[in-house]
């Protein structure tokens, strides 16, 4: 490959400008998603060839501006500064030319080579817009193309324009500089001269942009290019002079004055190129809103949609999950038959295949949930959901959009945590993710059912319900607490667009589902697999050879007798053996060592071991107890054993145990999801804090109950 033909193109544009559709249409499936370095803002990269060019396309986050205030904007800006893309394709919603051009102005200020893409041209036609694109191209000094990206129309013209620009690199087009009006232009030009003269500022390559940013008071640019006040003494003095001058002549804050200057320049362009502004394309959307955000029907419809997404994800998803379980079981028994029995066989069948099953079991949930989320997003309903829920969520210091991931948490925390991607503010995402594990997921229900059934008889339903309420109440308290402590930053602005309602396309929904699943498998699947194999080994090793009775011989004898009694006896012996093995394993020993820690909560060592194995997945608590009490999967007899006086678990301890299971560390897959989304620091906080919380709550309930004579 010739080095000259490797080209980097960035896509920039407003949220809701259809930028991702343009990206998808340009790259198809040849794309991958990673994070921008150091932040959890996603970076989509795609590849394609056009003529002799090998093109790498990067989809920058959708932004209205390029300031240092929001991580998304900073990432987009830093990418342009550091990675110096050969071209930037600026995607603009044709019906919203003015807002789109505001970003264009900032791209021009930065001195990048632009291609303007007027997207959603079909909507503009319907709205009767008439834009003189040639004139626009002339005024901006950039090629202008029209696209309908969601139908993949016109996107090749972008490539065509790009290749023309790249072939004539020597005669690069020049964008006329942005003018801010007479009062400001002089100041900007003057200051940019000082910047040019200042030797150490040359790194940025664009004095005018630097001058504008300094006047706007952009702290990031200031520390990046002029870190040392003394070395930039002359510039610093000049800047202060200029600011003073601006304040006195415009009687405005310089940041506001510059923004208004930009808008003034845009208004001039609009006057020249827009022959016919769009008719109100929100007309239909307003009518739909009359129902969907109606003060009564709005909530009812919202709840219905939520119910639908939840049921589809977790009820419908349960079928493929059963198939995966069955498939894993089938594969395990197949391999047990083929492989010579021994440690290696156990490792492959139980450890590795079991681990693969543990990874795969989340796939149906993730696929269906993200289908639902893309439908909600692409249709424009997500913004309305935020509109409806924001008042309630804001009470918790959250954004209206946080409701959906939190609700999904009741099904399964893993896809719910992945669903927080819809939140723009990093702080909102952290807070939402930390609260999701308090939403009692469906894996905890079997534990409640077992203990409530065993100890609370007719009250079981209420007791189980109280777990859900306790989880929510804890989440509310924790949200209020964290807002006042570790996450005490200013709320991110809520203000956002309510895009017109649109019909989602199959393509975009499918790409979104595939993308999320791919991220799950690539970024989380491997770690979940390895960690579950390790946990399996801890419950398997060291291998016990010396049992209290010779189970194998007895089982051998019984297999020759083909009666029901013999079969029952075999399974009894097998579970006795399994329980001795688990007790002898590292996890069993750990359970006994940590007994003093759980004793004050009223737990015995069996419950202690079950808590440890429950880290794999909380429903494993039940199967572990089945093993430890030699009962296999028989829930009824497990209930009987648990409540039998000889077992010495009181009703109070049982309740404390349920609370413990509700609150203690999120399961393995969840903590890995947390790490992937917001980093290791928050993952550890979640593990340690929740376990401490669980212990304290169980302690208070058990000891408090005893104190009160319960």
């Amino acid at each position, binding site marked *: 490959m010739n080095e000259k033909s490797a080209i980097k193109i960035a896509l920039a544009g407003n949220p809701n400008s259809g930028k991702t559709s343009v990206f998808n249409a340009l790259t198809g499936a040849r794309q991958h998603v990673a994070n921008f370095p150091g932040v959890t803002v996603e970076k989509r990269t795609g590849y394609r060839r056009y003529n002799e060019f090998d093109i790498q396309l990067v989809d920058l986050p959708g932004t209205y501006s390029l300031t240092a205030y929001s991580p998304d904007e900073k990432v987009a800006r830093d990418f342009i500064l550091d990675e110096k893309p050969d071209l930037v394709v600026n995607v603009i919603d044709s019906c919203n030319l003015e807002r789109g051009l505001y970003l264009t102005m900032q791209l021009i200020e930065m001195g990048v080579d632009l291609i303007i893409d007027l997207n959603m041209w079909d909507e503009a036609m319907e709205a009767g817009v008439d834009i003189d694109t040639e004139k626009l191209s002339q005024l901006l000094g950039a090629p202008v193309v029209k696209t309908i990206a969601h139908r993949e129309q016109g996107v090749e013209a972008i490539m065509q324009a790009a290749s023309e620009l790249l072939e004539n690199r020597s005669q690069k087009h020049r964008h006329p500089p942005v003018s801010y009006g007479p009062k400001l232009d002089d100041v900007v030009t003057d200051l940019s001269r000082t910047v040019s003269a200042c030797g150490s500022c040359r790194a940025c390559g664009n004095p005018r942009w630097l001058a504008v940013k300094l006047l706007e008071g952009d702290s990031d640019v200031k520390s990046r290019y002029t870190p040392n006040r003394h070395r930039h003494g002359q510039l610093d003095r000049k800047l202060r002079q200029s600011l003073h001058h601006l304040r006195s002549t415009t009687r405005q804050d310089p940041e506001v004055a510059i923004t208004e200057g930009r808008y003034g320049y845009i208004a001039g362009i609009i006057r020249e190129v827009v022959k016919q502004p769009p008719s109100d394309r929100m007309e239909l959307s307003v009518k739909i809103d009359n129902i969907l*955000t109606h003060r009564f029907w709005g909530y009812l419809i919202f709840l219905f949609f939520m119910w639908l997404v939840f049921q589809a994800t977790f009820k419908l998803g349960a079928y493929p999950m059963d198939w995966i379980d069955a498939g894993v079981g089938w594969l395990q028994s197949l391999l047990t038959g083929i492989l010579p029995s021994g440690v290696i066989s156990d490792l492959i069948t139980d450890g590795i295949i079991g681990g693969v099953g543990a990874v795969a079991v989340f796939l149906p949930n993730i696929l269906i949930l993200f289908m639902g989320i893309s439908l909600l997003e692409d249709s424009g309903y997500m913004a309305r959901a*935020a509109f409806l829920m924001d008042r309630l969520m804001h009470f918790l210091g959250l954004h209206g959009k946080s409701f959906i991931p939190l609700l999904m948490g009741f099904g399964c925390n893993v896809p719910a945590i992945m669903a927080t991607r819809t939140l723009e503010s990093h702080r909102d995402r952290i807070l939402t993710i930390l609260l999701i594990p308090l939403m009692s997921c469906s894996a905890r229900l079997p534990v409640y059912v077992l203990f409530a059934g065993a100890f609370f008889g007719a009250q079981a339903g209420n007791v189980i319900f109280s777990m859900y309420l306790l989880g929510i109440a804890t989440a509310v308290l924790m949200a209020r607490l964290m807002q006042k402590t570790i996450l005490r930053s200013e709320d991110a602005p809520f203000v956002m667009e309510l895009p017109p309602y649109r019909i989602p396309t199959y393509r975009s929904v499918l790409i979104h589902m595939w993308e999320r699943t791919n991220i799950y498998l690539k970024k989380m699947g491997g770690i979940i697999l390895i960690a579950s194999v390790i946990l399996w080994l801890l419950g398997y090793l060291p291998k016990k050879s010396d049992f209290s009775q010779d189970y194998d011989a007895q089982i051998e004898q019984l297999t020759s007798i083909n009666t029901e009694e013999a079969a029952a006896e075999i399974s009894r012996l097998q579970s006795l053996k399994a329980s001795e093995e688990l007790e002898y394993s590292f996890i069993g020993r750990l359970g006994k060592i940590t007994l003093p820690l759980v004793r004050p909560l009223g737990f015995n060592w069996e419950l202690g071991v079950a808590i440890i194995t429950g880290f794999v997945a909380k429903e494993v608590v039940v199967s572990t107890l089945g093993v430890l009490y030699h009962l296999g999967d028989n829930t009824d007899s497990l209930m009987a054993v648990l409540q039998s006086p000889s077992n010495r678990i009181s009703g109070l301890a049982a309740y404390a145990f349920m609370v413990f299971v509700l609150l203690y560390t999120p399961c393995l897959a969840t903590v890995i999801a947390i790490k992937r989304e917001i980093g290791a620091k928050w993952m550890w906080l979640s593990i340690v804090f929740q376990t401490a919380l669980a212990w304290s709550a169980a302690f208070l309930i058990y000891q408090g109950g005893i104190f009160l004579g319960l």
Partner: protein
Amino acid sequence: MSLDQLKPGQSGRITEVTGSGALRRRLLDLGFRKGEVVKFIKMAPLRDPLQILLGNGHITIRRSEASLVQVEVLLGKSSE
């Protein structure tokens, strides 16, 4: 008066965007600026946030944020 004090259906012309930092920047970047006309479409069922027509698009904004946008009322019918 500020934008959040308009009544549903009322329009106003922006006289000033106050506040500071990230929030003011966001408002400016979305197109809230002196001279621009805004229309109060409606409020969410719990009275917050608000739905505003700005330029050619609809914007949702919390009351606390809207209170930073100063407007003068334009003649127009109010639906309340």
